[in-house]
């Protein structure tokens, strides 16, 4: 038997009809995650065609993108940015009721960002195929699932048939060897990787992240890495499941229980690339060279260690990007004045991310004139953070502690920056206008974001971390 990659194993197990020269494969989808923004037109399509959901039991919905992150007022009214946003949320509530979909809405103690709650509920499991009308679905690849974003037409396809028409993507192995230096984390690593391979370096490929550094990572860290696979253009990012994965999943509400758990783990242990399996491409990354990394331009591939000088523009596009960012070639990003700091998003809003930011902020103040928002990824993260008192650390420092949601990552709920403001953000995209028209986004880790909030300028978090300084 030929050696297979992890991707091939998961793909092969889900082929309903194999691909031919003329037709793509029909691929079965185990889990369909749904949110309010990319689903309404798909539900409408079903209604127009008189169709039902094929597998409501394999469908899970939440409210996250258009939702306000300030709490409801005394009358229970939520401060939606627009009437349209409110209507969109109401539409998902109606659609889920009508089509029998489990919705983690306002009344759910599990509501949160779709890519945070899938894993938390144990709905995300190794070996699954998972899709969502959201490009950051790649996050779930951290569990050894083949997970990717789809458009609304395909959302409709999955609703009606639980299947997608797919051509088999190519594979790209990224080996991360060595050791990350103290105070340098998963976000620095993935920004560094995208800086190395480019914003389109993964196009047409599924990435498998491998090597000692990946194996040593926690699930939160693996999710941060897989989350940003799409920022290198990749369809998906995968990491082989291991004991870290199983320990994290065990006992979660939708995870297998009892004897079924043991059987599942036995099966999941086979989900790794065989020795000698061939990838279409391979890249090696030396983790020991990664430093606190930030972006300096207007796509995530324009990333660099914060203490290294910003490279000169090689063409008109790069010049436009530097001009937009008011970044100066030859000068490092470190030291750049900051207006807003955002800690949150499906990239970095989990408990460990909040702990990392709180570690830097404890006993310190957000600099005068800087606004800092901390938005937990889910109600569960919020509860856990509050039980540890992290919210007190944030509010004592002068930061705003918000209700879970996507918030300033996509800036469609009213949480946004003003034109010209510089935002140090733990999110995943630094496109022009992503966080508000004219807003300038610098992507960074939670530690860098917190250190920058305290300093009022982009700052090296290692200067604020006790275990690193010691």
């Amino acid at each position: 038997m030929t050696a297979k990659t992890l991707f091939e194993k998961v793909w092969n197990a889900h082929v309903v009809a194999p691909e031919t020269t003329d037709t793509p494969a029909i691929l079965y989808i185990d889990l369909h995650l749904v949110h309010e923004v990319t689903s309404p037109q798909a539900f409408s399509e079903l209604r127009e065609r008189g169709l039902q959901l094929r597998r409501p039991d394999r469908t899970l919905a939440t409210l996250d993108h258009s939702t306000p992150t300030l709490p409801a007022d005394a009358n229970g009214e939520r401060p939606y940015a627009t009437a349209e946003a409110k209507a969109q949320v109401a539409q998902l509530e109606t659609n889920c009721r009508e089509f029998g979909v489990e919705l983690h809405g306002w009344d759910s103690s599990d509501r949160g960002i779709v890519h945070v709650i899938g894993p938390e509920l144990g709905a995300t499991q190794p070996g699954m195929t998972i899709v969502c009308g959201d490009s950051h679905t790649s996050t779930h690849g951290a569990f050894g699932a083949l997970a990717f974003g789809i458009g609304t037409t395909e959302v409709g396809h999955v609703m009606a048939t639980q299947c997608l028409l797919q051509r088999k993507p190519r594979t790209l192995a990224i080996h991360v060897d060595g050791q990350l230096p103290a105070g340098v984390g998963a976000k620095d690593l993935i920004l560094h990787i995208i800086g190395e391979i480019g914003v389109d370096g993964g196009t047409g490929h599924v990435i498998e992240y491998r090597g000692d550094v990946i194996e040593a990572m926690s699930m939160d860290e693996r999710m941060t890495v897989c989350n940003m696979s799409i920022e290198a253009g990749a369809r998906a990012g995968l990491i082989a499941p291991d004991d870290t994965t199983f320990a994290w999943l065990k006992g979660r509400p939708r995870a297998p229980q009892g004897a079924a758990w043991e059987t599942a783990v036995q099966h999941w242990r086979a989900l790794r690339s065989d020795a000698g399996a061939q990838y279409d491409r391979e890249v090696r990354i030396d983790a020991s060279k990664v430093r606190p990394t930030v972006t300096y331009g207007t796509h995530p591939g324009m990333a660099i260690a914060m203490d290294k000088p910003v490279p000169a523009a090689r063409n008109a596009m790069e010049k436009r990007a530097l001009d937009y960012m008011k970044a100066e070639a030859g000068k490092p990003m470190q030291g750049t004045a900051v207006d807003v700091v955002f800690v949150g998003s499906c990239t970095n809003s989990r408990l460990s991310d909040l702990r990392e930011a709180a570690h830097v902020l404890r006993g310190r103040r957000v600099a005068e004139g800087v606004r800092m928002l901390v938005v937990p990824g889910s109600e569960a993260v919020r509860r856990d953070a509050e039980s540890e008192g992290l919210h007190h650390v944030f509010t004592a420092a002068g930061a705003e502690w918000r209700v879970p949601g996507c918030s300033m990552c996509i800036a469609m709920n009213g949480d946004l920056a003003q034109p010209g403001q510089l935002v140090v953000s733990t999110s995943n995209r630094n496109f022009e206008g992503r966080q508000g028209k004219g807003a300038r986004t610098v992507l960074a880790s939670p530690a860098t974001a917190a250190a920058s909030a305290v300093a009022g300028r982009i700052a090296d978090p290692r200067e604020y971390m006790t275990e690193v300084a010691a």
Partner: protein
Amino acid sequence: MRPVTRIHSRTAVLTDENIDTDRIIPARFLTTTERAGLGKLCFNDWRYQADGSDNPAFPLNQPPARGCAILVAGRNFGCGSSREHAPWALLDYGIQAVLCSEIADIFRNNALKNGLLALVLDEAEHRWLLEHPGIELSIDVREQYVALPDGGRIGFQLEPFARHCLLNGVDQLGYLQHHGDAITAYEQRVEKAA
């Protein structure tokens, strides 16, 4: 989907690389629950000035580019999010084809499912088109070529099933539903094994 066999138009050119879906349609407009009417929001923050008037610096606002149905764009067009609002907005704005040396996967997939020809060309030919805005092109989906005014032809890649669906206006959901028995058999096989 209506069949798409041939598109004839002058080209409009956006030379920028990595034109992301936030530039095609900013996220704040995604609160709609409809597909229709997004053309007026296409390239919103690039196309309009602060007072709402047309930005004369936006290439597609310049007279020769107005009304063009073929867009030649810099490499890696459509990168970023999975929002299908991007091809919906482009189509409603009047763009029927995007020619590029590389197109982001999800965008290309979404575009083709809506009859927007997202076509990948070789780099040299793509570069030539970027450097020659406003020329008359004719795209032949069946024969997979772009005809130049001088009679020359540029071939393009197109996934065979996408081509078949474009030419015949095939409803892909209908195609999937047609495989209902195979899907049921798959589900039974998997559930039995578990």
